[in-house]
């Protein structure tokens, strides 16, 4: 493959990923509304299109046609920049997550990952830490006390939970002996999913993922009864859509990360024993990846409509006094596993 | 490998360091002074990585790792001190913090 072929293939991959992510985001908003309706014994959106399936597009157009208001007290450049930071971070994380095994298409061997970086997990961690900036700048530049409090809460929360997130990932890295997501998925062959081998780390990671994506029960940065809308109180129109999109894209990415790190990625246990053809196996594996992501997205939404919001001090003490020690225990547990069974 | 001579990287780091020193000397706000200290640490790191890479020896990068750890510790403690001072004096301008006891 010469350089141009690599560039073109990468561009096609990026395009596919972006389109898929946008569709996932649009429909997770739709399913969020449908599932919340189901939980609360309502009907939910059912007017636009069959069963309300075109509702996300109606929502997007509604937002685009609204007036874009910048408050007089706001700092204009940063106010405009903040949603773009959030969006950029949310979308670029996806580059290192493998969606399936390498496939042969038109004579090319294609890895189903945009960039197989050998320090991919660190890249993800670095980008997640960047996500704080969108929210912090949004909170500060709006010139409103609700936004500022939301921004401060959010950055404190995200920094705190990043610690336990990093330590849970360390357990996975010990197991796979590599920082590359592709290798991490390959290390979880058969039943050796990290969720089974290190359940404590799985739990701490999932909880941290909820906190990092600012989802209920940890959605204190935008807690409506206390802070109006948190950091996006002063946002409207396209910029609000940007934050909204980024939130759901973060949710999709958190799900994809959980699948990659703990639920075996695209692997289906013992599928090679079934003796299916190569093409069929690959298709089932890719489909299983999407199924797992979908199931986790459902889990995210389900939790949101089932569990009430934490108080801020409860959130902090949960992060530092429960999740962090548990993540440390997980590392010792994994080290012991590796020592005893020579994994 | 590159055609960029090692001196270019070093000069870049020297410029960065000087900018950092300038900030520490002329700015009044303690937090900006802090940022400039981070600039200086970064420029030192840059020259360490340069030497490490041009000598083909990873020890320089290990040192960068250590410097970053110390910088993180320094940022945490320094910021705590700044906040404590702000609580007592209601200012973080270093030219107004000029007595031993209040």
């Amino acid at each position, binding site marked *: 493959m010469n350089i141009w072929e690599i560039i073109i293939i990468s561009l096609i991959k990026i395009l596919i990923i972006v389109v898929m992510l946008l569709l996932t985001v649009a429909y997770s908003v739709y399913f969020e509304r449908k599932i919340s309706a189901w939980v609360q014994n309502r009907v939910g959106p059912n007017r636009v299109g069959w069963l309300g399936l075109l509702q996300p597009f109606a929502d997007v157009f509604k937002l685009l046609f609204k007036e874009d208001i910048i408050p007089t007290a*706001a*700092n204009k450049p940063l106010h405009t920049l903040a949603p773009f930071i959030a969006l950029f971070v949310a979308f670029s994380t996806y580059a290192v997550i493998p969606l399936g095994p390498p496939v042969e298409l038109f004579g090319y061997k294609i890895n189903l990952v945009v960039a197989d970086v050998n*320090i991919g997990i*660190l*890249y993800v961690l*670095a980008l997640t830490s960047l996500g*704080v*900036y969108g929210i912090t700048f949004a909170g*500060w530049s709006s010139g*409103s*006390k609700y936004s500022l409090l939301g921004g401060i809460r959010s*950055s*404190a929360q995200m*920094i705190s939970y990043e610690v336990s997130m990093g330590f849970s990932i360390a357990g996975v890295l010990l197991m796979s002996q590599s920082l590359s997501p592709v290798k991490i998925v390959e290390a979880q062959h058969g039943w050796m999913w990290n969720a089974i081998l290190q359940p404590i780390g799985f739990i701490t990671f999932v909880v941290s993922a909820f906190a990092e994506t600012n989802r209920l029960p940890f959605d204190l940065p935008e807690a409506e009864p206390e802070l109006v809308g948190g950091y996006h109180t002063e946002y409207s129109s396209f910029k609000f859509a940007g934050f909204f999109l980024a939130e759901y894209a973060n949710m999709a990415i958190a799900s994809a990360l959980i699948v990659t790190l703990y639920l075996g990625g695209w692997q289906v246990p013992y599928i090679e024993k079934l003796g299916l053809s190569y093409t069929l196996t690959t298709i089932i594996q890719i489909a299983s990846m999407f199924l797992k992501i979908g199931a986790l997205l459902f889990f995210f939404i389900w939790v949101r409509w089932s569990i009430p919001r934490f108080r801020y001090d409860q959130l902090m003490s949960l992060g530092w006094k429960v999740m962090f020690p548990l993540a440390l225990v997980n590392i010792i547990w994994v080290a012991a596993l590796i020592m005893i069974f020579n994994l | 490998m*590159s055609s*960029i001579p*090692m001196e270019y990287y070093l000069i870049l780091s*020297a*410029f*960065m360091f*000087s900018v950092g*020193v*300038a900030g520490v*000397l*002329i*700015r009044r*706000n303690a*937090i*900006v002074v*802090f*940022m400039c200290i*981070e600039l200086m640490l*970064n420029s030192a*790191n*840059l020259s360490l*990585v340069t030497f*490490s*890479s*041009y000598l*083909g020896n*990873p*020890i320089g*990068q*290990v040192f*960068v*790792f*250590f410097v970053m750890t110390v*910088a*993180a*510790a320094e*940022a*945490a*403690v320094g*910021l*705590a*001190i700044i*906040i404590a001072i*702000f609580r007592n004096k209601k200012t*973080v301008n270093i*030219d107004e913090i000029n007595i031993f006891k209040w």
Partner: protein
Amino acid sequence: MTFYDIIFYLFAAITLISALFVVSTRNIVYSAFYLLFTFFGVAGIYVLLGADFIAVVQIMVYVGGILILLLFGVMLTNKITNVEIRTGTVQLLPAAIGIGIFMGAVVAVMIWTEWKLEPAQIPLTTTKDIGHLLITDYVLIFELLGILLLIALIGAASIARRDQE
């Protein structure tokens, strides 16, 4: 001028110009914002130098940790909801003279020294080497740094907390 050179000059320009803005802009939040670009520029140069691990750690530690802490400091030490956060400068002239002399000396030393150079041999990734060095030759320093971080954590918490009577 190869592609590599252009990238070097690009990153060098980003680093230097944003560093100058950090020092010169009057708004503290803008300073923090430009510092973000400086850190990114330095990370880019690390990648050019073949230090990918250090580059990512730079973003994680400086951008994701230290700079956020500094922004926190800005927000906690100013009147809340005050968008116009400004501070002045002092002692411009003596500082300019001092820095001019200092920079001239450093740059002169860097140019005129006969550096001992090995033929450049950059491995694909240095992560493994760094890891090995950290737990073999430098393990004592590594452990001490862990203790230092713990002490800093406790110290920072105890300094910043309000006294409870």
